[in-house]
């Protein structure tokens, strides 16, 4: 078993490896975490996710732009792929939830969608990724098939977001309490509200920022919520409200 100092050192290297987009270093630290018998979930949340949290701050401050964030995400996945199989799925702290996510029909921009997906994966959600250019009915079908907790739709183009209210309406028709998040460059709170979505980024132009902000919120949630409560009560509302604090 690793000493607290060893653990702190590994977490620091995981975190910095993500921040410095040094995938090799993240992979090495992840192997070491497993070798010394560290809790894989702790390594993900307090190492990798903590690093991404800082990346989000850098992005907000204009120190990092999208290319850097993408490289950080690659580094994070390098660690996540190794650590995830070792996370004990019955861990009490884990958020249990199912998400259906995709980029709407007519739009093939999936960078923002993929980052949001990553955040959900890090937090332990089961993610059904429908990909890009997804026919609107597929969101509804998958939602019903998987009994998902959340439906996430993304659109990069002003010309494609117009499909979103159609899906929101159809999902709501099946389940008025469904949680729906929409995001993408042209989406803002006003649009989300008007269309009846539960949430989106506060400020449209930077949907990526909101994806990055989610990481911190999900980390907090994982500490605060027990599985059962999460299943019952947690939703996009809570998450996004939390992201504003």
């Amino acid at each position, binding site marked *: 078993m690793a000493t607290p100092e060893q653990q702190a050192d590994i977490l620091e290297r995981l975190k910095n490896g993500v921040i410095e987009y040094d995938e090799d270093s993240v992979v090495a630290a992840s192997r070491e975490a497993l070798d010394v018998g560290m809790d894989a979930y702790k390594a993900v949340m307090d190492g990798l996710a903590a690093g991404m949290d800082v990346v989000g701050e850098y992005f907000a401050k204009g120190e990092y732009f999208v*290319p*850097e964030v993408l*490289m950080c995400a*690659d580094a994070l996945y390098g660690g996540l*792929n190794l650590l995830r199989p070792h996370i004990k799925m019955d861990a009490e702290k884990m958020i249990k939830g199912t998400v259906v996510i995709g980029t709407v029909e007519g739009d093939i921009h999936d960078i923002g969608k993929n980052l949001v997906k990553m955040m959900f994966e890090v937090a332990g959600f089961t993610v059904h990724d429908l990909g890009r250019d997804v026919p*609107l009915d597929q969101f509804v079908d998958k939602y019903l098939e998987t009994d998902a907790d959340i439906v996430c739709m993304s659109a990069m183009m002003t010309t494609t977001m*117009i499909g979103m209210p159609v899906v929101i309406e159809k999902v709501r028709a099946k389940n008025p309490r469904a949680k729906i998040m929409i995001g993408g*460059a*042209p989406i*803002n709170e006003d649009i989300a509200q008007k269309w009846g979505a539960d949430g989106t980024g506060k400020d449209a132009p930077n949907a990526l920022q909101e994806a990055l902000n989610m990481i911190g919120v999900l980390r907090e949630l994982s500490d605060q919520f027990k599985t059962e409560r999460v299943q019952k009560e947690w939703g996009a509302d809570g998450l996004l409200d939390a992201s504003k604090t």
Partner: protein
Amino acid sequence: MVNNSKDTVMKVLRGDATRGDPVPNFSGMGSITLYGIQQLGYRFNEIHVDARKMADAAASTYRLFGFESAVVPFDMGVVAESLGAAVKYYDKADQGQIIYPTMTRKVIDRANVNVPEGLSEADAKTFVMKEIERQITDYELRMPPDIAHTGRIPVVLEAIRILKRELGDAVAVGSWTLGPFTELGQVMDLEFLLKMSAKKPDVVKRHLSFMVDYLEKVLSLYVEAGADFVTVREMGATSSILSPRMFKSLVLPALQDLFGRIKGVPRVLHICGDTNPIVELMAESGADALSVDQMNRLNETRARLPNVVLLGNYKPFGAPFCEGTPEEVDAMIKESIEQGADAVWPGCDIWPVVPVENMKAMMEAMKKYGVNSR
């Protein structure tokens, strides 16, 4: 002496507008309305593939509302398609959906990679990523032998000719392509293009140099066919995505190269998203006019660039333009002019669902506020 709408527009684009001249209201990007298309009896999917219908749709915004340009094409797939990307055409108007043609398969695309069987999900992803990186590093884009007859480029060329013939004296005919960096993102995996801009800039520079050569040829064909002005839309290089440093080292030289080679008509550089950190660099591109969207603090930009032609910057989707009242649209136009725009011009394609009364309110507002006071 300004005679008509086209003269007003061309004078602004050439930087010759003076105090007391009318401020025009036009665009160099898609500016069609669903109302206009329905009046013509066309379906939304037809106007992207048929030169006659494309021209009619582009002309309808001028004919119905007095909008001061007619611009083709409407979708972002024309050039990428001519380089081998697959474009999908949707026909969902019956379901109440308007979907523009979209690239569904790029030339370099993850969906083209054959993953060996038996790999875990994580290993398969790593395999695909390595393969895409290798392809982008090794790949040489190739020009089609006869550009004027490749893909839909002949459709766009014919639509320009029709517009020129039928409206050319009265209204400015515009055409556009994406910028070299953004167009590369249409042809190859965007995520990797962005990462490699940081990791292997020389590889990206090589592809950019091809794209400048190619866009020069396409834009020159558009000009030859009769475009009175052209717009280059480099939104992929916005400061919402790329650092100003990378814009300067990677994208700006390509834009300068391209603008240096397009002759004979005014050239507009359009970038949307956050452009506040890069407007001075945009002004160094060699473009005759700059177009920015609603995220640009236009009054500041005006102060920073007193002698540059600025086109902007109302938001052509959502509220108020498409979802607000005519009074709100009136106020929006007033603000654009007060902030120092040389022409009222949208920050992106106009959303075709814009209500008729809001289009009318916008053009009416020009009569009230549209006088150059600079």
